[in-house]
């Protein structure tokens, strides 16, 4: 199936028959965390991946971000595999956000500045833009001076989100970003993601992993179900076929 001619333009981000297994323990047999899974995400599309714990949702999302070596299949960006030296540049455009926001010790502002020092970042820290985002969240400049150790779970997730979108990614890969949050913090994150997506709805795309079907329906135009490392079902809000250009 790989290399077969396709009827339409290449997807923005695509996984083809990807598989990942755990290294066999001393005597145990190998186990596939994910196998034979394909997914294509078009520009302007919002896809949700749902499934029970252990279904391989995170494994698939990390595979899409090229964070783990694959044992089978490949991941394509705009139709092409990503060569080794282009991986950091690719990841800046398709950012994976952890379920547990991993912030470094120090202030919120220092955390926001850090990735802008990476070689692939272009443009420096923009205080005006950050302030604008904070105002929209009902927070002032004092938030920037806060130490990350003092943040609530929701605040930490917000900082991780702002840290990611200031790099202007084209795709966000969100791994249960609200799983550990209360209802109010969860809707704040949902609103932020909605806002980011609809800013340039035709270009941006997002993949949202959730175990919450209601949320998946709310946040995505298409839902893919995983079970035991395989695709269990594919369903759109519109029946059949890829759903593209779903505006907010």
């Amino acid at each position, binding site marked *: 199936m790989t290399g077969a001619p396709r009827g339409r333009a290449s997807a923005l981000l695509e996984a083809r028959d990807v598989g990942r297994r755990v290294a066999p323990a001393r005597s145990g047999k190998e186990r596939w965390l994910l196998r034979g899974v394909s997914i294509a995400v078009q520009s302007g599309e919002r896809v949700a991946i749902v499934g029970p714990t252990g279904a391989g949702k995170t494994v698939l999302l990390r595979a899409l971000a090229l*964070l*783990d*070596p694959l044992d089978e299949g490949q991941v394509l960006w705009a139709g092409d595999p990503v060569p080794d030296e282009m991986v*950091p540049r690719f*990841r*800046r455009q398709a950012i994976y956000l952890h379920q547990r926001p*991993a912030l470094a010790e120090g202030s919120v502002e220092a955390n926001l500045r850090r990735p802008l020092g*990476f070689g692939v970042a272009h443009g420096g820290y923009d205080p005006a833009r950050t302030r604008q985002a904070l105002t929209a969240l009902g927070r002032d400049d004092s938030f920037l001076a806060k130490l990350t150790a003092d943040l609530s779970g929701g605040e930490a997730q917000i900082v991780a989100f702002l840290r990611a979108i200031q*790099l202007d990614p084209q795709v966000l890969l969100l791994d249960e970003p609200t799983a550990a949050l209360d209802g109010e913090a969860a809707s704040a994150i949902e609103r932020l993601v909605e806002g980011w997506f609809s800013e340039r709805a035709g270009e941006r795309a997002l993949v949202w992993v959730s175990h919450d079907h209601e949320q998946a329906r709310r946040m995505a135009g298409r839902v893919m179900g995983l079970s035991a490392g395989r695709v269990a079902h594919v369903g759109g809000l519109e029946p059949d076929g890829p759903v593209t250009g779903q505006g907010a």
Partner: protein
Amino acid sequence: MTGQYIDLTAGQVAVAALLILVNAGISLALRLGMERRLLVAAVRTIAQLALIGLVLDRVFAVGRVEIVLFLMTVMVLVAGVAAVRRTERRYPGIWLNAVVSMWASSWLITAVALFGIVRVRPWYDPQYAIPLLGMVLGNTLNGISLGLDRLTQELEIRRDQVEAFLALGATRWEAAQDPVRRAVRTGMIPIINSMMVVGIVSIPGMMTGQILAGVAPLSAVEYQIVIMFLIASGTALGTVGVVLLGYRRLFNERHQFLVQRISKTE
């Protein structure tokens, strides 16, 4: 050597060995239950030192280059293995990494000493080559095991942070540099500390030995200063080497962090 010293007889050594009874007495009086271990330790001390004494005696008597190099190789291998055995977390390839960096750093520094500083002729004269290498190895071993321990610990504990940086477009080096720096610093702390207090808090064993052997204190000090700098540079090279090799093992060219390679020892 300039002075003379009192050659010990077997009887005198035996009297010193009886001092182990002090430890045994304390262990019995306080019911520490350490008698067995004390006995083993005492026997090992005597046996191991007697063995190395016999080996060195032969090597010194023969003084052939291939025998000296062979002994130096064995010393490096033993030190490399000892460095890894002290680590709490390991990864596939850690033994090779430790031996390679131990080998490269200690031989390079010892060569500098033999050819460039002490200017021994012939360069493989075991009277110089063996103790100089031994001093460098003993300390590089510390640096390497501390560096490895800290590197794997930092990477495992800060895994989420390292991966968050990678996910934001950091290269593997950008993502790993904080843990790498901490690991190198940790490996170099002991030697810097001992350079700070040498001669004040501690009189190094080698200098003590030379003085006992009748060398004038100022000459012994000159040697000790040379040794301190050899040790410091050897430790730095060995630590940096092993930490960088470990970094390359734990991050692949695709800028992926292979945390599953790190495993804890029981």
